[in-house]
């Protein structure tokens, strides 16, 4: 299988939110596909766990830069600037950092709005701005944002979260136009429920189990796994998708209602 078009060999990929869930798996899978990975997240300890997994998955190529890990809170400008500085030249970025925001509109506050929009929309946009302004992304690079099916369909209690993800989808079309000259591409991944430890956060074990089963039954192909997201991210980060830009890949296990 010489010349695998999905290979990331020779590419450096920045992954945010790399301390858990989707970000962590994407970082590990990118490394297994041959990429040099720059990890970033807020939690130092969990970040170093990801780094251990990464080294195990793919120790790096002799003569090439090793994987890097940069602790950063992307809501803090200095942290974000330092991350761009330390990342150096990159070929792709996977914006995996994000928070859930569960609150019916009746219960939201300005603080809540700022928090959800800040982490899910402002931070990835400002990081993208910085990367582009500093010329950190090489020509032909790929920018991948983590959106959500909540941006496409209404779900109780996640209005602001949905809006933060829909904002990414809207912005990506314009970003795709703006960066096409350098053949830098920008796309979103919209995933439905992915099984991560955080999914049943706040529920008792019994409640969690019942809720998970109910959700699995709604999806003909069950719930997603971090691997599913990572693999779609690899497609968008690799040369295989060099003509795909400004769009959103929907992955939802076939859910209808």
């Amino acid at each position: 299988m010489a010349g695998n078009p999905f290979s990331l060999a020779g590419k450096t990929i920045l992954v945010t939110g790399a301390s858990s869930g989707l970000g962590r798996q994407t970082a590990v899978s990118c490394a297994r596909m041959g990429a040099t990975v720059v990890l970033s997240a807020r939690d130092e300890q969990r970040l170093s766990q990801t780094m251990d997994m990464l080294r195990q998955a793919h120790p790096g190529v002799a003569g090439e830069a090793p994987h890097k890990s940069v602790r950063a809170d992307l809501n803090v400008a200095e942290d974000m600037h330092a991350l761009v500085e330390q990342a150096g030249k990159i070929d792709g970025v996977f914006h995996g950092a994000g928070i859930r925001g569960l609150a019916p509109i009746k219960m939201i506050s300005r603080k809540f709005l700022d928090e959800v929009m800040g982490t899910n929309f402002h931070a990835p946009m400002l990081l993208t701005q910085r990367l582009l302004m500093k010329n950190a992304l090489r020509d032909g690079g790929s920018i991948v944002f983590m959106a959500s099916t909540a941006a496409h369909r209404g779900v109780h209690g996640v209005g602001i979260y949905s809006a933060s993800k829909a904002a990414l989808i809207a912005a990506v079309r314009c970003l795709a136009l703006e960066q096409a000259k350098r053949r830098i591409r920008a796309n979103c991944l919209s995933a439905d429920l992915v099984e991560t430890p955080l999914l049943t956060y706040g529920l008792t074990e019994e409640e969690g189990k019942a809720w998970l089963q109910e959700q699995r039954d709604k999806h003909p192909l069950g719930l997603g796994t971090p691997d599913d997201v990572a693999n779609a991210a690899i497609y968008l980060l690799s040369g295989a998708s060099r003509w795909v830009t400004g769009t959103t890949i929907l992955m939802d296990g076939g859910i209808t209602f």
Partner: protein
Amino acid sequence: MSGGPFAADHNDERRARAANGTVSGEPFNPFSLAGRTVLVTGASSGIGRQTAITCAAMGATVVATGRDAARLAETCAALEGQDQRGHRGIAADMAESDGLARVAEEAGVIDGLVNCAGITVMAPFRMTSEKYIRRIHGINFDAPILLTQKLLAGKRIANGASLVYVTSTTAHIGTFATGIYAASKGALIPALRALALEVGAKQKIRANCISPGYVQTPMLDALNAGTASIEANYDLAPLGLGQPEDVANAAVFLLSDASRWITRSTLMVDGGLTVHVSL
């Protein structure tokens, strides 16, 4: 297990491989098609030919079909791994029920299907006729739907298989003089969303569409040779004209376990063409 006599074995082998993450001796590659049989229609030229070639390069055993026997033979000659895997070509006109039945009969049990066969003839609404409408729909909609029906009824689609249908961005946009063509492609999208529900939960068969923009193919050349040149449209896509490889790679993504959780979806492979359009 309702995927036919060989389907279960096929499937178990694939699941084991997916769990393992690798095919023994090969590097990690969730996009590999090793061990799978993929039926590609319209394989005698353009996107179909490249899809057959790319699927073979990614390890698949390819069953290629097309109308033109000589050009189909050229495609088959270009497939990697012929000696080990025994790719096959079936020359058939799927607009004819005989041809359709023969492809469904001779393809064997498949793990993937990529429907690339299609025609484009531009005509403004006032120039359309019943004959024209029936011809376009017969090839672009009826044939892939009936082929899928026959394969399913004959238990020729293995559990866990992935079905991919090449539509067109014009199915979403609606452009000048493509009304009937756009409708024939657009009709596939909801039809396959329904199919994917019917075969999803139990058989884990997936169905997705790819909507390509302007791709450098003999079909596009033929359109330009006509009276209405569409070359000016190429620049509308931020990334310009696409190559058949771009669609073929998207098909490989959708055929492989890398897209295990994606079904009822349409992937825009259009160089950004549709970012201009309110969809």
